[in-house]
């Protein structure tokens, strides 16, 4: 049995983290949280989360950056906004999840073995290059990078897509994709506060 220290000291905190998250768009009311747990109750995915959304808020507010970024919670968030509309303090919990994802993405702080962020990364790359998403190509790339066995085991889905003529082989792209890329480069991380 391996014993690890569970108690959290000052060293486990990242001063200013909570404040920085609260400064991100949609996250302004983070501080108002009364830890009622309405978000966790409303979340359809909380059954799979290692920290409930409420706990994530507590961690963020307490500057526990490492814990907040390493949980699966933010990645299991499917952006259904059930938490946000139920929050009695009108906290943009989904936006906080976005903010945490952004932070985790930029620092590659997400938990190892979690494939969800990889899809996001692939998605972004495709948008930057082509301006649009070709779903089948995105998914194939995703599976190849994360779990090629899953790609093979999805052969039936692939066959079905071919059968229903939805298997997009041709990569969609926009005409001004270079201009778009330039635009995105210009706007990257330009939002207020920046990524913490």
């Amino acid at each position: 049995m391996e014993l690890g220290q569970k108690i959290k000291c000052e060293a486990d905190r990242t001063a200013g983290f909570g404040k920085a998250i609260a400064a991100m768009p949609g996250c302004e009311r983070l501080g108002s949280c009364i830890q009622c747990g309405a978000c966790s109750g409303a979340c359809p995915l909380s059954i799979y989360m290692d920290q409930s959304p409420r706990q994530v808020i507590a961690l963020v507010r307490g500057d526990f950056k490492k814990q907040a970024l390493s949980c699966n919670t933010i990645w299991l968030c499917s952006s259904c906004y059930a938490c946000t509309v139920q929050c009695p303090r009108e906290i943009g919990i989904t936006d906080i999840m976005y903010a945490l994802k952004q932070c985790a993405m930029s620092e590659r702080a997400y938990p190892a073995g979690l494939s969800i962020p990889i899809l996001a990364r692939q998605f972004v790359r495709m948008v930057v290059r082509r301006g649009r998403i070709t779903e089948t190509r995105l998914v194939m790339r995703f599976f190849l990078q994360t779990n090629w066995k899953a790609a093979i085991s999805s052969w039936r889905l692939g066959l079905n897509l071919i059968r229903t003529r939805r298997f997009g082989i041709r990569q969609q792209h926009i005409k001004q994709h270079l201009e778009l890329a330039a635009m995105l480069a210009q706007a990257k991380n330009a939002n207020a506060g920046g990524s913490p």
Partner: protein
Amino acid sequence: MRYHYFPGCSLKGLGRAYDESLRPVMERLGVELAEIDDWNCCGATAYMSTDHCNACALGARNIAIAESSGPGDIVAPCNACYLALNKTRNCLAGDSATRAAVQKALAVAKLTYTGTAAVRHPLEVLVYDVGINVIKRNVVRPLKDLKIAPYYGCQLVRPHCSFDDQWNPTAMDRILTALGARVVDFPLKTRCCGGSLTGTAPEAGLRLTHIILGEAQRRGADLIATICPLCQFNLDSYHDQIARRWGPARIPAVYITQLMGMAFGLPTEQLGLKRNFLPADKLLAAT
């Protein structure tokens, strides 16, 4: 009635049946959809997870192009696009720093965002601009005896829905009733289908899909009506995996526009119904 049309990537890919059915139905109802020139991906949830400002810039480009090409609102049939574009509008309206950054980025493409064009969902257009009576008048083959569970998905109504109730939206219910169908009382109308988690975290994602399918089955629905390409894909594509995990719940999911097309007597082959994995046999039989 002329609108800027933002189909979104899905409607050009997995969800093309939505696009295929939406266009003739809207045409029949006198709605003109002008596809936005060189539109780009809305950013969806993935982009928002990466970079807030870029996510806004993506949406803003589409809106700015639409705005520059003439007056009119934007119709975005995909729930995710609808939310992403609206979110962009809200961010740009409320956050001057982001707005300034985005305008600066748009300037690269010689575009300007004004925020004059509203982003609307076809459901809203159908119920409020076209009107239920007009829809009713166009019905030639009522969907009699079909029990349909209206499934709106989450991102249409949340977080800020302006045209329908957040907890119990009824726009689709009203259209279905106008089509002559029997609407099943379906409390999971706005519950999340699992989104992209069906692919990235099947255990979690498929469970959510299963809950919706299972409940529709329990309530005796013949069909599930959807208004979002991702929802439709999730509900239609994983019956085998779901059956393996939790038992069968084989209910076809079709787009509301396909149903409308059928009721309007449009040719079946024009409505993309063959693109369903699980064929909507009962629908085909009924009409």
